[in-house]
């Protein structure tokens, strides 16, 4: 079977093309173009999935030159799974945003209309990143995603958003340059920029290791691992809700996924005891720090943003849990992937619900949202479903991921990490219950601008439906894993660098 030439590049080109189209189209076409474009871009992932399922991993080279001189794109099971994840999130966010941003009354363009080109370009960049196999290509796509992320934050227009965007851009630039310096050193040590060719060269070297250390440092900043997470909370909280969903749901995962790719390509040899332990310590600190700070926030979106910091800490525990070479390593990686995807889906849904509440009530201050569960039961339901996942309660995929990682920590006898994970679960329960305590009050002050929020235009019924349905669907997707739990597992095993767990076997033991 020969793969069509557009198989791997269509998921990248199509969103970029829609980015240009939504820049040029008149304002009243944008919502419809956004929805249809999202459906097309999501559909572009289907041929990739079929190929991987039937024929295994695939290499393609845009430009016609293969590595090492050219750039290779690589599609394996994990990349395919993340492409599907992006497609699902993209659909949800696009439909939500089409309802969230009100069309301007007289058809003139507003700042909100720039959401669509920036969002589609971000989508294209993310797809391109998941398929990427080339170190410098990773740099360019990371910068693309960051700069369009800055633009997305700026749509809010408030001085707080501008400040957050400035900090975000500075972080992205510096992290990117640190990463680039690392890439330069690695290239000069191994003579190639391709991850596969690099992993074939097993001998460690001083320049290569230094370069990889720098690359890791850059990616850790971009992944917002404690203590390099300072730029994240304001950026995610002060943006408009669809943007927060994009940033916390999608963008946060990309740096972590790239780090795992580089891990298998040679990073795991860098400092076999020091680096995983360091990542484990920083991850644990992130879990605790994010949780504690989330308890102190007064605004719903800030709570969710600090929750993201905490969940990112969980992801980094995977490095600490695999270095023992104990049996069951695959279990941990599967758990981490489950955790990444479920967090993305659920955080996106939570921000969508928070955005809905903010639009309906005029503010997202927790004190002002007292008792709004009566008025907006569906939105609070979405938040409740999201919380089940964030807390790691069964039967959510969040529980499955955390359980796999807990099991691995027992296998490798790292009791400290197990304690931190369980403690983190308790912390998330604490800050989420605090939120619900406000929302579920029997009665509250009447809504309206008298509460110090922005002026509220009541939401139309169709607007509410279009905003809440995607949110609910995304959140429920993580609650009904029994329907599809074997699919991600089977996908992950295609082309995987080490055997992932076989979840279908009874007991789930490797």
């Amino acid at each position, binding site marked *: 079977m020969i793969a069509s030439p557009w198989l791997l590049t269509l998921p990248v080109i199509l969103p970029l093309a829609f980015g240009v189209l939504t820049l040029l189209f008149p304002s009243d076409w944008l919502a419809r173009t956004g929805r249809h474009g999202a459906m097309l871009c999501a559909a572009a992932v289907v041929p990739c999935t079929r190929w991987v399922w039937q024929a295994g991993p695939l290499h393609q080279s845009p430009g016609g030159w293969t590595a*090492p001189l050219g750039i290779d794109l690589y599609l394996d099971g994990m990349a395919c799974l993340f492409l599907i994840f992006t497609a699902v999130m993209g659909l949800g966010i696009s439909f939500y945003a089409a309802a969230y941003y009100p069309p301007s009354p007289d058809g003139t363009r507003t700042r909100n209309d*720039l959401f669509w*080109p920036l969002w589609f370009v971000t989508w294209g960049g993310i797809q391109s990143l998941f398929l990427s196999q080339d170190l410098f290509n990773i740099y360019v796509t990371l910068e693309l995603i960051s700069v369009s992320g800055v633009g997305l934050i700026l749509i809010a227009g408030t001085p707080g958003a501008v400040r957050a965007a400035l900090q975000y851009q500075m972080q992205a630039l510096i992290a990117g340059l640190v990463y680039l310096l690392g890439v330069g050193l690695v290239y000069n040590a191994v003579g190639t920029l391709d991850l596969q060719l690099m992993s074939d060269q097993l001998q460690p070297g001083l320049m290569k290791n230094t370069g990889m250390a720098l690359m890791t440092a850059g990616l850790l900043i971009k992944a917002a691992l404690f203590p390099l997470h300072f730029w994240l909370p304001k950026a995610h909280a002060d943006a408009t809700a669809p943007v927060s969903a994009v940033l916390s749901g999608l963008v946060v995962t990309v740096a972590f996924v790239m780090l795992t790719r580089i891990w298998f390509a040679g990073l795991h040899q860098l400092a076999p005891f020091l680096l995983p332990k360091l990542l484990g310590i920083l991850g644990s600190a992130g879990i605790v720090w994010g949780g504690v700070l989330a308890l102190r926030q007064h605004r719903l979106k800030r709570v969710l943003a600090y929750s993201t910091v905490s969940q990112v800490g969980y992801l980094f525990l995977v490095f600490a849990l695999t270095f023992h070479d104990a049996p069951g390593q695959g279990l941990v990686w599967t758990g981490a992937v489950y955790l990444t995807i479920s967090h993305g889906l659920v955080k996106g849904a939570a921000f969508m619900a928070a955005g809905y509440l903010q639009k309906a009530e005029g503010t997202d201050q927790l004190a002002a949202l007292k008792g709004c569960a009566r008025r907006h039961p569906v939105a609070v339901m979405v938040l409740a479903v999201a919380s089940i996942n964030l807390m790691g309660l069964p039967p959510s995929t969040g529980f499955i991921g955390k359980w796999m990682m807990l099991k691995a920590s027992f296998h490798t006898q790292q009791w400290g990490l197990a304690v931190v994970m369980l403690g983190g679960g308790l912390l998330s329960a604490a800050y989420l219950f605090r939120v619900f305590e406000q929302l579920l009050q029997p009665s509250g002050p009447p809504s309206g601008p008298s509460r110090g929020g922005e002026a509220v235009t009541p939401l139309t019924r169709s607007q509410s439906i279009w905003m809440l349905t995607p949110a609910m669907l995304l959140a429920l997707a993580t609650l009904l894993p029994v329907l599809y739990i074997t699919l991600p597992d089977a996908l992950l095993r295609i082309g995987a660098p080490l055997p992932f767990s076989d979840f279908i076997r009874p007991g789930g033991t490797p």
Partner: protein
Amino acid sequence: MTTGLIFDIVLAFSLVVLAIITLRQRTPGESVVQLMIFGLLLALSWLRVDAPDLALTEAAIGSGVTGALLLAALHRTGFGTPFPSAVSPWIRYPVTIGCALLGAVLSLVVMYTWDQPAGLTDPAYAHLEESGTQNPVTAVILNYRGYDTLLEIGVLLVAALSVYTLSGPASGTPVKPPGPIFRFYMRVMTPVFWLVVPYMVWVGGRAPGGAFQAGALLSGLGALTLLGPTPWPLRLKRRVVRWGLSLGFSLFLVTAAWMWQYGNLLAYPTEQAATWILLIEIACTLSIGISLTVMFAGCAGWLHEDPERAV
């Protein structure tokens, strides 16, 4: 100890000292001037390591355009307001020591592993004939690794759009009308710009030059026009600006997709490679020139929210 080596040592040392001096200036205006001098000397150093394309680009973009952008921003925030007092010593000393350690470690690593070269020089030159151009850097950017260039033009578009979201209040900061020296300069230099930009694109196939340098020159022309007696680009309808911004990127995207029929995205058939590269170079030049000009206007605060103009 050849003369060249002595020159290199002096230049390298001066660069490091200049970097320190730039960051110790007291006012923003002074630091910008130092940065531009630093950029020009850096371009000189890149000539010494046989990177003329990069030297051109650094002089044009790194020193020229960046300097213009910094000055445009200072036009709003003030050239002469001195920087506030320094950060607390609890932060300053550990950071300085940490960075110095990092520098020492990296220097030692580089010196220790210096004699093990590895790289892609040979394959790059081996395929140069089929690449459609004689300039190896152009071949790398626009043929072997054209996909990266496509994404990078996307970065430019998105950065210009992000600046675009920040339309300021309608008043903006007024500019003094240009004096006779500036008007004379514009009269003489505008035709020169219009000649040099296409030449740069053309000569990039054979010698140092190409789309990036030409694009930087084009943005220089754009910035000068905005400062000139009739800043007509500012009076363009926003719709025109949007179309202009997307022009380069869409051209690149369409060309790239057209190649799907030849085997893959951006895979030029060998006989036609030179033509396609030229087409894409034109797209990149337009994109760089227009995007940087829009960003220059944004830094200066000239993207107004004028209700009479359609956005």
